[in-house]
């Protein structure tokens, strides 16, 4: 299943349609093969899938239902210090895919792709600087990605997603604390990850001096999803 923020390219649409078709087939197979799983709402869901223009699909029976990212209200920001002065920035374009059942967190998966060329510090002069090779080098690696490898529950709506964070071609293991809150069918995932910019060569060359730009960067996220099961 897929939840995409950026508008689907024709190929992407085709892919997702073909995946839809596959899933309908596999769901049908699943229904006939495993009657136990065909309880309650499953048939209705399949019908909805077949009717919807570009819905999500689950390729493997074990994967939880995919959620859909709601761009409105979702935000990924970052904060660092420049000679003691906190500087805030945010990413204007990103794309999250989530397949997660709060009741079975270990089966969940989350991935995130952030368009680094759409990073902004709120000042055109600084933004022009951010895309340069010393900083994000967006010509070479346009996206930062996170791919979870394990999710575990900590209780009370809190979870921990372990995974690989890749920026500028540098990959590091990170542990992301996530708090989920649900209201009116929307699930909001929030959290903060502390990273070291130099781990990813962000601010290379003369910018390596951490007395100028601190090594610590806080990345804060708030992602709204629909289609996540109840907590």
């Amino acid at each position, binding site marked *: 299943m897929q939840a995409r923020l950026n508008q689907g390219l024709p190929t992407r649409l085709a892919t997702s349609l073909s995946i839809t078709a596959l899933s309908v087939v596999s769901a049908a197979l699943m229904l006939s093969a495993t009657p136990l799983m065909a309880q309650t709402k499953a048939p209705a869901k399949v019908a909805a899938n077949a009717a919807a223009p570009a819905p999500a699909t689950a390729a493997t029976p074990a994967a939880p239902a995919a959620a859909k990212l709601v761009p409105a209200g979702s935000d990924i920001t970052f904060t660092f210090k420049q*000679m003691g*002065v906190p500087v805030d920035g945010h990413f204007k374009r990103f794309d999250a895919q989530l397949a997660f059942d709060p009741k079975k967190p270990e089966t969940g998966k989350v991935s995130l792709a952030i368009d680094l060329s759409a990073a902004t510090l709120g000042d055109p002069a*600084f933004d022009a600087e951010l895309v340069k090779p010393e900083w994000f080098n967006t010509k070479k690696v346009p996206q930062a990605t996170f791919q979870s490898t394990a999710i575990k529950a900590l209780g009370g709506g809190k979870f921990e997603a372990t995974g690989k964070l890749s920026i500028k071609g540098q990959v590091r293991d990170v542990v992301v604390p996530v708090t989920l809150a649900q209201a009116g069918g929307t699930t909001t995932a929030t959290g903060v990850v502390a990273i070291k910019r130099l781990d990813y060569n962000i601010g290379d060359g003369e910018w390596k001096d951490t007395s100028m730009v601190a090594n610590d960067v806080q990345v804060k996220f708030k992602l709204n999803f629909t289609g996540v099961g109840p907590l």
Partner: protein
Amino acid sequence: MTTVRPSLKPVRRRYDGVAMLLHWLLAVAIIGAFCMGLYMTGLSISPTRLKLYNWHKWAGVTILALSALRLLWRLGHRPPADLPMPAWQARAAHLVHGLLYAAFFAVPLSGWAYSSAAGFPVVWFGVLPLPNLVAPDKALAATFKLAHEWLAYGLAALVLAHLGAVVKHVVLDRDGLLQRMLPGRA
């Protein structure tokens, strides 16, 4: 031993030590911050530029604090009496002094407000975060930038007028005006 104190205090001919210290300290700081401001705004983004901007802000806040101290001191301590000069010149001198004091506050405050409006809070010496004077706002930032720039040029013009008057007194009048702001015996 007892000494007989004169019944009349001698007429003060010089500023007191604290006034002199603050005068010269601020003279150096203000000229330094002004030159830094002229230079740094022409630089493209680099660590040097960011460093200078921060130093400039730290200097500005220091100037503001010292100016507040100086004003309080000035209000509590009478300066020496005017040297003999035409009344219009004395009035002009007092006017320039008054405007200088106003600029000592207006220039750093407009810079601080500019930084606040631009979304960059001032952290004094990289340690003490100062409150934002105004909320971040791009249009307001542009206004304060302009105000800061012109107030700084205004202060520079006042300093030049001040220096011009000193030169006049030293070279033309030879009335010992400069000695009032220099340490030495009364």
